[in-house]
C-alpha cells in the first residue's frame, strides 16, 4: 500500500485575493501575421503543406517534414462543423455571453479544422457536419477576436 499523509488542519490560516495580469504584446512572424492581417480584412487564410494539404490556422512549419511553409492561400468563408460542444452556462471570459457551441470548423478549401465558437441560439440548431459562416466584428484590429463567431449558414 502507498503511504498516506493527511494534510494537517491548522487554524486561522489567512488568505487574500491575488490577481495576475499579463499585458503581453507578441510579435507574430510572417505566417501568423498574415493570418491576423487576413482576419482584419475579413479574409481567412491557411498554409499549403508539402503534401498539398491546406492547414488552418496556418502552420509555420510542415507538421510532417518540419519544412517552412510559406504559401498562404485563401479559404472559406463558409465551412463545416467537424465536432462541437455545447456550453449551457458561459464563463465571463468566453467569447459569447449566451449559450453557444465551441466547434472545430473545417473551412471550404481547408484540410484541417480551426477552433472557434458558433452562435447557434439553441443546442437543437447544432449538429456535426452543419454549414457555418463567419460573423465579423465591426471594429477589427488583426486578432482572432476579429472573427466574432461562426453562425449557421443561411439559406
Amino acid at each position, binding site marked *: 500500500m*502507498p503511504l498516506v499523509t493527511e494534510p494537517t488542519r491548522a487554524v486561522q490560516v489567512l488568505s487574500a485575493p491575488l490577481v495576475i495580469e499579463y499585458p503581453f504584446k507578441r510579435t507574430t512572424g510572417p505566417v501568423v501575421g498574415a493570418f491576423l492581417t487576413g482576419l482584419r480584412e475579413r479574409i481567412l487564410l491557411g498554409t499549403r503543406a508539402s503534401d498539398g494539404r491546406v492547414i488552418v490556422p496556418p502552420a509555420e512549419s510542415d507538421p510532417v517534414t518540419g519544412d517552412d511553409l510559406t504559401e498562404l492561400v485563401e479559404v472559406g468563408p463558409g465551412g463545416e462543423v467537424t465536432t462541437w460542444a455545447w456550453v449551457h452556462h458561459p464563463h465571463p471570459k468566453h467569447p459569447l455571453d449566451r449559450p453557444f457551441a465551441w466547434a472545430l470548423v473545417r473551412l471550404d478549401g481547408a484540410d484541417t479544422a480551426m477552433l472557434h465558437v458558433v452562435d447557434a441560439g439553441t443546442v437543437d440548431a447544432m449538429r456535426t457536419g452543419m454549414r457555418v459562416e463567419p460573423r465579423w466584428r465591426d471594429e477589427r484590429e488583426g486578432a482572432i477576436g476579429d472573427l466574432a463567431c461562426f453562425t449557421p449558414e443561411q439559406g
Partner: protein
Amino acid sequence: MKRDVAVISFAQSAHVRAVDSENEVEMLMPVVGDVLGAIDMTMDDIGFTCSGSTDYLAGQAFSFVMILDGVGPWPPIQESHVEMDGAWALYEAWVKLQLGEIDTALVYCCARASAGDLPMVLTRQLDPYTAGPLWPDSISLAALQARALIDAGKATEADMAEVAARSRRAALDNPVAQLAWDRPAGELLTEDHLVAPLRRHDCPPISDGVAAVALAAGDAAGDRCRRPAWISGIDHRVEPIHLGLRDLTESRSTRLAAERAGVHDGPLDVAELHAPFTHQELILRDALGLDATTAVNPSGGALAANPMMTAGLVRIGEVASHIHDGTANRGVAHATSGPCLQQNLVCVLEGDGAGGRRR
C-alpha cells in the same frame, strides 16, 4: 546498454478539493518524509532531485524554487524541474540515472490548483494567437473530443457513464481519493449535460495534492526495497498544438510511446491510465491495446483525484505499489498533459519475478 532503474518507494498525500491550511512546502514535507522514511533513506542518500509543477496553478513565479525548501536543499543539491506533470520529472530522473553518475533520485510534484480557476488557467497552454484569446476551457476542449469519438461510433455516452461509475466505485477502496461513490451508470445518464456531450460525472475533480517517488539503479534498488518495481520501458510523445491537426478519436502518441516502451512484450496485470475525462480512458485502452485481462485504474484514476501536475506521477506510483506488495508482477502506467491527450508518457513496470530480466 540500458541501466536497470526501479521505483523503490512511493508516497502521496490525500487529495482534496482545496488545501487551504498549508502552503506547498508544508504540503510536500510530510510526503517526502514518508517516501524516504519507508526505505530508510534521507536526502543525503539522494543523488538527484527533480520536480514537476507549473507556476500558473497558484499564480506564483518560480514557485518550484520555494517548494524546494520542503526537501532541504542546503548545502546545494543536484536538482532540476520540469513545467510538466511529475511523470516527466521522473523521466528526466530516469535519464539522469542512465548516465551512471548517480544511483538514486527523488521525484516529487505538487498541485495547488484550488488557488485559481483551473479550467481557465489551462487555456494559457494553448496557441496564444488563435486559441488562447478565446479562453477555451479544458472541459470544453475535452467535450469536443468526446463528441468526435461519439460521432465516429467509437463510444457512447453510456460507455462513458460506465467508466465514471466503475472509477468512482473503485475509488471507494482508495483512502486518498477525493471522489468516490457507488451509483449505477444508467442513473448517471439521466443528469443534465455540463458541457454537452460531457456530464459532470465525465469530468475529473479539481484536486490539491502531492506525490513523491524514489528511484534507484542496479544494486542500490535491491538494497533498499524488497521488491523493486523495475522500469522496463519508458517513452513519451507529443502531438501538434492545434486540435484540428490531430485525430482526436485516437491517441497516436500513446500508441507510439507504448510500442517504444514495450507494453506488448508481456501480459499486463494492472494499468493506471491518466484519463481525466471518461471518454479518454476509452481512447487510451484502445491505444494501449488493453483487454479484459488487465485491471484498469483500480485506484479510481484521475476521475477520483486529479491533482494537476501530479496525477501522472501518481499513476506510476500506484502501479509500482502493486508490484512492491506483490499484487501485480507487470503493469503499465500512463501520464498525460495538454488538451485532449496532447502529450503522453507510457511507463512499463515489472517485478523481480519477470523471468530474470535483470542481467
